[in-house]
């Protein structure tokens, strides 16, 4: 067993865990944050994407013990003060989800794309940047629209806040 302390959605958590516990299992089973999903075993589907120290990673391909001291944000931590994050709003507004299973990872990846690439995202860029997130329901059409709109909404929110 090994000890790990990390900050998840703003709260500090400490646990003693089997070292083979993946971050995804730690979130789902120890913290009961079941919004992070696991859809494959080969780190390709992206349903498990969370942010670690501000960067998107696949939580099924990281050991929780290895992230001692890290700041983790999951889909449950994206909305603040009861307000949906602009990317969450954009997915709803543009029907960027159907069964909802890939959605948490998709949204976390989308926010990361905007953090890295800015607000003005063309379709080609969005499609390439979503390489690590698989959706079986939407054919991606509305996800692409949602990410583009969410990116602009994030920029607008930021401007409004400044």
């Amino acid at each position, binding site marked *: 067993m*090994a000890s790990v302390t990390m900050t998840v959605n703003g709260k500090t958590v400490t646990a003693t865990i*089997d*070292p*083979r516990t*993946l971050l995804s299992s730690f979130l789902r089973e120890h913290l009961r944050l079941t919004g992070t999903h696991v859809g494959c*075993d*080969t*780190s*390709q589907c*992206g349903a498990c*994407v969370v942010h*670690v120290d501000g*960067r*998107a*990673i*696949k939580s*099924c*391909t*990281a*050991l929780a*013990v*290895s992230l*001692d001291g890290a700041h983790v944000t999951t889909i449950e931590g994206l909305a603040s003060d009861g307000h949906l994050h602009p990317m969450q709003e954009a997915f709803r507004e543009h029907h960027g989800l159907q069964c909802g299973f890939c959605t948490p990872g998709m949204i976390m*990846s989308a926010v*990361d*794309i905007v953090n*890295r690439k800015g607000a003005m995202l063309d379709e080609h860029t969005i499609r390439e*940047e979503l*390489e*690590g*997130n698989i959706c079986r329901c939407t054919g991606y059409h509305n996800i692409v629209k949602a990410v583009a709109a969410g990116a602009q909404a994030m920029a607008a929110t930021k401007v409004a806040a400044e």
Partner: protein
Amino acid sequence: MYAFNYQRPKTVRQAAGLLAKAGGDGKLLAGGQTLLPTMKQRLASPAMLIDLNQVDGMGGIELKGRNLHIGAMTKHADVANSHIVKTAIPGLAALAEGIGDPAVRNRGTIGGSIANNDPAADYPAACLGLGATIVTNKRKIPADEFFTGMFDTALEDGEIITKVIFPVPQKAAYEKFPNPASRYAMVGVFVGKKGSDVRVAVTGAGANGVFRLPEFEAALKTRFNAKSLDGLSVPADGLNGDIHASPDYRAHLIGVMAKRAVNKALGK
């Protein structure tokens, strides 16, 4: 995953000590983007896992003279976004930008990729195509001697890659044809030109991992132009074959990717 003993050393020396202690049953954990899926599938079962993520002095990107030094624990995303790399060897930054997907690039490291020497990995092509030197805690190994076969390297027991030194070329580019399913390189060709030296390295295609193409290199030395490769072909013998690409198709793609890489290097 099988159970393992987890260790989190702070220095390379400690890590090397643990690795020695583990005998053949220790594994280094860098970004884990290949190792962890392999362990999840129970295809790897190290008794000890030595996590390098808190080891000091294994990151960083620096230009020293005409050589680019990249610390072994540098993440793909950091290579891709580094102003230093983009200026010195844009083809290397572009290669890093094409590894896996954004989330994988945020975890995966150059040292981990090279040490694993997956026959479909991208970095080995850059190392060979640029004539890089792999620096370990014990010695410096020229790329030409480093990659010894599929998932096999010149690394000895207890040896840890600490950084990779890339000589800055005049021109370099990488062109990848991804496997449609995994998106790993089905064929990837790196071309590098430094002075009169031209290197062409191929990944994804060879049954023994990354390899150079002397004939292509000779033709490009005469004239560094895609047309110089007209009429040249690669024998399919010894190339990988699977449901996505036969050895013949891979051989063909090597030619196409090589030309495209040359054009890219020339800014065409």
